């Protein structure tokens, strides 16, 4: 059921990407909010803030080691964003922050859990001074197995670049 849902979402995302690439992809010269690169074929998709906000927004209510208590994070699903690359058989992603800090994240994380590219916390948009523009958020509270240092290290903030390996 989960697999079907994922395939369906990927299909929808694919159609969306196609439409997006034809008409509303970030035009050169606009501010690039998040850059996606498929290393294997050299495809690059630059997404603006508006592009990301135009996507379906998901909310994750969770705790983690960097916030006080439960916090409500909002943003598009990470797998939907990656779908813009229209890449198949993705194994690993490299997520890079604005300060060049990078982590590797398996694609399976994004498929198995509703990991989001959060753009707001408790309704307030992130700034660079506060983990913006994007903070990768795992739903840790509802998935106890994610409450581990391995996943804690993947909560990269100030995300600006995603490389698909």
């Amino acid at each position, binding site marked *: 059921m989960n697999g079907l849902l994922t395939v369906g979402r990927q299909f929808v995302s694919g159609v969306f990407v196609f439409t997006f690439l034809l008409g509303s992809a970030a035009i050169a010269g606009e501010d690039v909010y998040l850059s996606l690169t498929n290393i294997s074929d050299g495809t690059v998709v630059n997404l603006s803030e508006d592009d990301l906000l135009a996507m379906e927004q998901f909310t994750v209510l969770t705790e983690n080691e*960097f*916030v006080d208590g439960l916090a409500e994070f909002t943003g598009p699903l990470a797998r939907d964003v990656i779908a813009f690359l229209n890449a198949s058989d993705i194994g690993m992603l490299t997520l890079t922050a604005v300060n060049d800090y990078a982590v590797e994240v398996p694609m399976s994380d994004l498929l198995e859990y509703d990991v989001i590219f959060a753009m707001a916390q408790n309704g307030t948009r992130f700034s*660079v*001074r506060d983990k913006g523009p994007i903070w990768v958020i795992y739903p840790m509270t509802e998935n106890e197995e994610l*409450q581990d240092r391995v996943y*804690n290290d993947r909560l990269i903030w100030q995300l600006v670049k995603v490389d698909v390996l």
Partner: protein
Amino acid sequence: MRMRGLPRLAVLAIFLAVTGLAVVGYNAFRKDVAAMQAASLEDITWASYQLEQELSRFREALLQFQIEGAGGDVAAVNNRFDILWSRIAVFNQGGIGGRLSEYDRETQIIPRLFADMKVVDRRVVELAQNDKAEAAALLEVFSPYADELRIFSRKVTLGEELKGREIREQLQSGVDRTLLWGGLAIVIALASLAYITRESIRFKRLAATNLKLADVAEKASRAKSSFLTMMSHELRTPMNGVLGLLALSKQGAVQSSQLRLIEQAEQSGQQMVDLLADILDFSALYSDDLELETEPFEVEHLATAVREQFTPLAKWEGGAFSFSVRPGCPRYLQGDFRRLRQAFSHLAQYVAETAGVRDAKMEFSCDSNTLLVNLSFEYSSEGGEWTPDLILGEQDRGGESFSTDALGPAIARGFIEVMQGNLRVDNNADGRIAVRISVPVEGFVPTAINIAVLSSTDTLAAICRAALAGADVNFVQEGDVDPVHVVLIEAGNTTESTFLSRARKDYSQAILVALGVPIEKNSFDFMVNLPLDFHEIRDVVRKRVA
């Protein structure tokens, strides 16, 4: 009893001890794991180095701006400032921020740095292109923090190493404790297992010994019972002979004084026979071998029999004791007449001996196939209290000794219980004490059985009459025209053939019963051995009734 309780207590204590140890061990281990998990969730040394690094990068951007002058990148400076700001923000919230702030509690480097950043925020944002002096001034502000953050990072690293060592030691200690508790629990469990095994073996041996002892005791009891039964039988047979002779002697011309002596001898003899019967019955009761002998009887006859059996004692005690049958009570019932008589006689006797016989009454009645006997009396001992312990069986049950006066009540109670009856003692409102007995019986509509006795001696005929005295038997006399159902014929001697011929002629439809081993065995329907056994002849006649 104590030995049975001890192992249970020991097992419970061992179980609790082992469970307690296991719980303590588990909790200790759980705490250690939780501590390890919390400590390892995020490496805060990385966060402190990140801050140090971002400060360095910001300063580098300022320096680059200062060097390049007009070509300096203001946006890069602002960007680095924002990133540094975000690193400072980490200290202000969450578990990571809390742990980092702990290390900065005394030095307060981070709050000072953040305060300075807020102060220069506008200056950084509004940094004009080619404003080298402002860049130099900003560098001046942040330069002291480079060393302080380096020291802070080192402090965090050392602190985390110490904490790591503590956690490792704690874990080691937890493992040691768990091993200790586990080992202790295993030792206790093994010790308890050994103890329980030893106790089990001991109890098995004890049980085997007890079984042997019980077997020996049972054999001894059976031997005693068998001996008692045999002796009682052996004594009863000559006693019956004595009673028969006494009965015969009364038929002759005897003086009244001699008659009284004979009657006393008869009563004593009868008491002896009854005592022997009691012994036999008691033995049978205690070995569960008692077989009830159900036969028809007259309730009036039962009351009379109890009275006759009790009269000598009543005379001796000197009190008044009346026996009566309530009007409306069926005349005939079926039950074990002899055992009922014995039971009621024993109760009456016990009451007379222990409570006196002042105005004692025994009333017989019947209600729905239940024989009811109400033995009521006034307690004659002044100031004392009559306790019916022996009647209710509360004294002799389970006791090792058996008092001499307990035999009668025990037999009475035993008979009543075997007959599925009930016995209770009430204190009536009028101050009288009532012993109430109820025994299930069957109704009976009598069929008169006419019996003829053909014997050369009056002795045998008298014994037969005594043996068959009852409600449903009628001994015919010469000249009676009633049909004869049973003919008792003296057999085994020269008169046998004569009596047989007479019986065939006069009582052709009757059943012929030989008294003694007959010469012509085939001519008789039944045979009863001599000396005459009362039970045996009653059985034969009962079969005729059936």
